[in-house]
């Protein structure tokens, strides 16, 4: 868990990170390692008391799956540091998208499997058997240990989730966000499992399967949400904010800046999310062609890049009129802009 190569983390490809993002990245790496250590301890602990409870099994598998996002994040942050090369002119940013997709598919498959598995248990009226456990010379009900393990592992992920959520926003990192989101909701999984086990305890054999169904439904829900996001990113949807809640405002800011320039008559951009950073193509119609000097175009580009650290891979294309085919739904005759 060394953070060797910290010096190299100052960049994503050829994007140099501002101080705030560098710090956030270092913290995110540290917290993801802490997450992995916590998960290693908690999965081992839960494994020891797994027994015959379906809900415990579901909770345990969710714990195991929780390893994927932090590992994906750590691998991806190493890969994207590479500079663009002749064979990878856009850099390696898509590694984040791939990591996101891998994690999402695993969640979907596991969620679906667990729903079927617990559903069968419920339909065939399987009565879960939990007997005694002998510790320090006394034999007591194993269910109590299960509940204890669940309560012990319920709290820490919530704290980890809240910390990582902030970092995900600063870094515009959707893998980190997905991870934080899952962690934040982990306490519900743990409590559901505890309720399922206690349900067995009071003689309600079905409580366990019902709790397991709830947990697996939530795993599937997580998976589908992330799958949608990951596929969206990989298929070049319009760049959205780190939590996919709305289009990223940076596109509009670039457009209104370009339009405010004296030599520009119309300007429109298309923006796609490469993982952390954006690819921006801005089409600019000059008022008169002689005013579109190389110097002015260069200056406008520098100003846009300075606007947001995510904007680095940007091109400004001077055009005679806005190319409708590249800007779907955006050019309504072009007359609405001065």
């Amino acid at each position, binding site marked *: 868990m060394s953070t060797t190569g910290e010096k190299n983390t100052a960049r994503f490809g050829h994007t140099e990170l501002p101080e705030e993002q560098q710090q956030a990245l270092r913290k995110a790496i540290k917290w993801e390692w802490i997450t992995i250590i916590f998960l290693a301890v908690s999965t081992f602990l839960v494994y020891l008391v797994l027994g015959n409870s379906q809900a415990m099994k579901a909770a345990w598998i969710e714990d195991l799956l929780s390893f994927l996002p932090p590992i994906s994040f750590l691998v991806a942050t190493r890969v994207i540091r590479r500079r663009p090369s002749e064979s990878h002119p856009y850099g390696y940013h898509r590694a984040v998208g791939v990591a996101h997709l891998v994690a999402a598919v695993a969640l979907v498959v596991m969620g679906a499997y667990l729903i079927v598995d617990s559903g069968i248990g419920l339909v065939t009226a399987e009565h*879960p058997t939990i*007997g005694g456990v002998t510790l320090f010379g006394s*034999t007591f009900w194993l269910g109590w240990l299960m509940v204890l393990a669940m309560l012990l592992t319920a709290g820490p992920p919530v704290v980890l989730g809240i910390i990582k959520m902030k970092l995900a926003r600063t870094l515009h990192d959707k893998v980190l966000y997905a991870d934080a989101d899952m962690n934040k909701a982990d306490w519900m999984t743990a409590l559901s499992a505890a309720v399922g086990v206690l349900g067995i305890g009071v003689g309600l054999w079905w409580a366990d399967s019902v709790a397991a169904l709830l947990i697996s439904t939530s795993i599937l829900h997580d998976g589908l949400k992330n799958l949608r996001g990951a596929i969206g990113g990989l298929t070049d949807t319009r760049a959205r904010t780190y939590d996919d809640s709305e289009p990223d405002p940076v596109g509009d800011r670039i457009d209104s800046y370009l339009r405010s320039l004296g030599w520009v008559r119309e300007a429109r951009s298309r923006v796609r999310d490469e993982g952390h950073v954006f690819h921006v193509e801005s089409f600019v119609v000059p008022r008169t062609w002689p005013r579109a000097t190389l110097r002015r175009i260069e200056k406008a580009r520098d100003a846009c890049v300075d606007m947001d650290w995510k904007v680095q891979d940007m091109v400004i294309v001077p055009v005679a009129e806005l190319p409708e085919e590249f800007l779907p739904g955006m050019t309504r005759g072009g007359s609405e802009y001065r």
Partner: protein
Amino acid sequence: MLPSMLKMGAVIPGLVLLLGLTSCGITIPQDPEGTLEKVSGGILRVGVSENEQWVQLPPTGDPQGIEPGLVEKFADTLDATIEWVPGAEHELASDLFHGELDMAIGGFGADTPWVKEAGITRPYTETTDERGKPIKHVMLVPLGENAFLLELDQFLQAQEVEL
């Protein structure tokens, strides 16, 4: 995550209900089919399958061996009368599954294939077979009858088994 409302809606009242029940003096775990209650002061139906020194079935009289001895002691603690039901392992497993037996013995190991039909106790002693493979010895109980299982587990763990 699931729409949180749905989940919270299930979890929180569930916890409250269960905590309420436990504080009302309901012991945990309970038997869904009430086995422990039925056999206490009543009849304990025990399936027996012959297996070397563990269970011997003489032509007349009660089964002999290590496990029948343990079961007799266990029945005493519950003030129960034993009804011995001899049969092959698969018959006993099926009877347990259909609620026609309360427990079964026959020198079963913890790796018994009958885990779908029956619950198993904690291993109460360990031996090695002629190939040097360790065998953890268990008894079979009905699936999900956890109060009865815990009672038996607690009894077995407290025994010194002489081989």
